[in-house]
């Protein structure tokens, strides 16, 4: 579903992501973790087609992002850590607009169902300025899910959500994966990643330092106990990496 080969991205003279290669299969949830400045958001923005990579290849559902960006993006959704909404469109209009951009014939029905699921039904005519931070986040998620993407990129998906919202979000992510979508969740909340994700990709200084299931990563580090949590694994693998030159 998603193939990333040799992804490299530089900002001026600084390499934010270096030769990153991984895959995400249909139905799989990949946890993307790493310390601050590791290159997680840069990787996601490259995969989402926002930043052009300096090198490497990204293939989404068989479409090369560089060669066929429109077809690749049509099958993908990116949920940024901060909800980016148009100040002058209401909740319902956001969904109408996104429906037309992604050419969703039954956008109205899907919007109703998503708003219901995200408890935004009674805020349909509200403008973003009248929504709380959590509601804005929910609206951004609804916009992302409207076209039923096959690849979903979440950057800190739980920021701003209340406990009920967090539970629903986690259920929604699991449900989408169960229906065959490939999902990447980037988060500092390691317990969330451990709970939700099938495989984990740890990056530091733009480099892949660990990749696999939690058990596979633990097996590769004999010093770790069998009962080690993702937090223990994370601290172990990130502490032994040399800082970026």
């Amino acid at each position, binding site marked *: 579903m998603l193939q990333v080969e040799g992804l490299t991205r530089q900002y001026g003279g600084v390499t934010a992501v270096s030769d990153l290669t991984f895959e995400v299969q249909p139905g799989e949830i990949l946890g993307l973790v790493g310390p601050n400045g590791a290159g997680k958001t840069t990787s996601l923005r490259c995969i989402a*087609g926002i930043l052009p990579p300096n090198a490497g290849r990204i293939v989404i559902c068989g479409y090369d992002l560089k060669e066929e960006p429109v077809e690749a993006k049509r099958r993908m959704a990116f949920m940024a850590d901060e909800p980016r909404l148009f100040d002058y469109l209401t909740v319902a209009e956001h969904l109408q607009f996104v429906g037309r951009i992604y050419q969703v014939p039954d956008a109205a029905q899907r919007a109703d169902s998503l708003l219901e699921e995200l408890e935004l039904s009674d805020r349909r005519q509200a403008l973003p300025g009248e929504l709380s931070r959590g509601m804005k986040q929910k609206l951004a998620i609804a916009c992302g899910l409207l076209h039923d993407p096959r690849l979903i990129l979440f950057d800190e998906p739980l920021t701003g959500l209340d406990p009920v919202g967090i539970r629903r979000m986690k259920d929604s992510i699991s449900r989408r994966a169960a229906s065959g979508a490939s999902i990447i969740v980037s988060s500092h909340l390691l317990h969330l990643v451990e709970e939700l994700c099938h495989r984990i990709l740890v990056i530091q200084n733009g480099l892949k330092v660990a990749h696999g299931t939690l058990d596979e990563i633990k097996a590769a580090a004999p010093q770790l106990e069998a009962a080690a949590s993702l937090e223990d694994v994370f601290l172990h693998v990130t502490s032994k990496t040399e800082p970026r030159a």
Partner: protein
Amino acid sequence: MTGAFLFLTLRTFKNRLLSQIRRLKRPRYLFFAIVGVAYFYGVAGRHWMAGARIASRGDLSILPPVLAEVAASFLIMGSIVVAWCNAPPISPLAFTQAEIQHLFTAPITRRALIRWKLMKGQVGVLFSVSIFTLFAGPHLARGDRLLFFAGAWIVFATMQLHMTGIRLALHGMKQRGTGWGRRVAVTLAVTVAAVGTAALWASSRVGAPPTGLAGKGEALAAFGRYVEALAASGPAWILLLPGRLLVRPALATSLTRFLLDGATAAGLLALNYLWVMGSGVALEEGAIEGARRIEETRAARSGGRGIGRSPRRLRATRPPFSLAPVGRPEIALLWKNLIAAFRNVGGLRPLVWIIGLNFALILVILRVSRPGTAHVVIGAICGMLAGMLLIVGPSILRIDFRQDLPHMDTLRSYPLAGRSLLVGTLLAPILVLTAIEWMLLSGFAILMGGVIGEGTSWSTGPAVLALTGAILAIPMTGVATLIHNAGLLLLPAWVSLGPSRSWGVERMGQGIFTTIGLLLVMALSLIPAALIFGVSWFLCSAFTGNSIALPVSALPAAAALAGECWLGVVLLGAYLDRFDPSKELDSVTQAG
């Protein structure tokens, strides 16, 4: 504490300057910077340097001093009246998010904060005065240009303080429950009463202006004496005095004169400073709160990342049309931007006010008067507005990338090619501006056509001109809008983002700089179409009259402009496909 403020100001200035210089490493910025500097040297810098050495007199400096003083006084009074009615949204007391977070919580008095912000605002004022002197100095300075620069600084700094004082006063009035309507009514009533009294007094004492004088110099001198007499007559003298005192140092012919006049003007500056600083703790608190809200608004504009409300209190009005779920995606962008325009985001409101008042006037004139001078004047105003709109319209109506660039991450994640994104984004301003231009041209044709001699060849003239204008309006608006957006996408660090233009004396210089650049590019882009129009008209007019030749000639010219538009869309669309927000925008967002 002064040391900390000084450190912050100087370091901010230095780092900003360095980042602007670093930006010139990019060939695109370097190229346009060289072109810009060469242009400014050609039109202003060369004269400035020559003038500074030989103190040559500019064109307008031959005007009697009183004329310049009175004209400047009127400008100052006008801007003060406008400010009392509708204060500019950005004041020098607008705090950034970082300043709010670090300084509001620090053990610093609000008074010290305000004093620092006012001093900091002088950096922008000095830049604006420099640009103003560069352009206006050669024409207005009567003595040394450095004296003009110093005098202009006193005017600009005083006005900035005065506007800040008005903002503080308005905030106080709002706190006391004085609404906008009442405030505007009182301001206009006072203005009308004062100007009316002065005008009546002057007309009864001074009489009619001089006529029938031969020779430009004699007429000008006589007119100057007449204006001097008017300005010295009772209430007019009182009304005009502050403005005249303020601008006198800038018009001084010698250092001695400058020092004498400068002392009085500096007194006005000091009075305004004391007015602002002495507005009371409650007002200071209110000003900071107001400034904080402005900053929040600004943050909300730049990508919805900020806290707080939308820029203006928006209402969820009815969309302009119903958007089907499938079809050309460009229409979705048009729909979105029209919604923004109709919800009073991005500059449509001032345009609608101008056009609405104009049409109301036309209707009244048509109903109450016979065809005559009034029709001609209003018709001409319609024509002029239509012409002006081609140039200033895309600058005012910002429902394009200037509004959406902060959302670039979202837009780039959509399954749209750069060309589609560009076309969709530009459709709304082009449609809105063209519709307004067509309305104005209709007004021009109806009013002028009804007056200029029925049965003569000119009876069809205004209609023909309007038709020709209407044909050219769409592609010309397209080219103008495209140029504004190309400037933004190619040089985002040089164009102000967001749906509204930045206001304030301190932003004037930057505004002049970018506007002239855009106008220059637009003038160049019109050359091919103008040539085609000229050749077509020459050929057509050999066979037919003007009434056919003009609109027919407009067709190939419009096609040429449309071709330019298409080429621009192709090139800019391809550029948009490669657009890298991290290179183009992140530094802008951080800096801004």
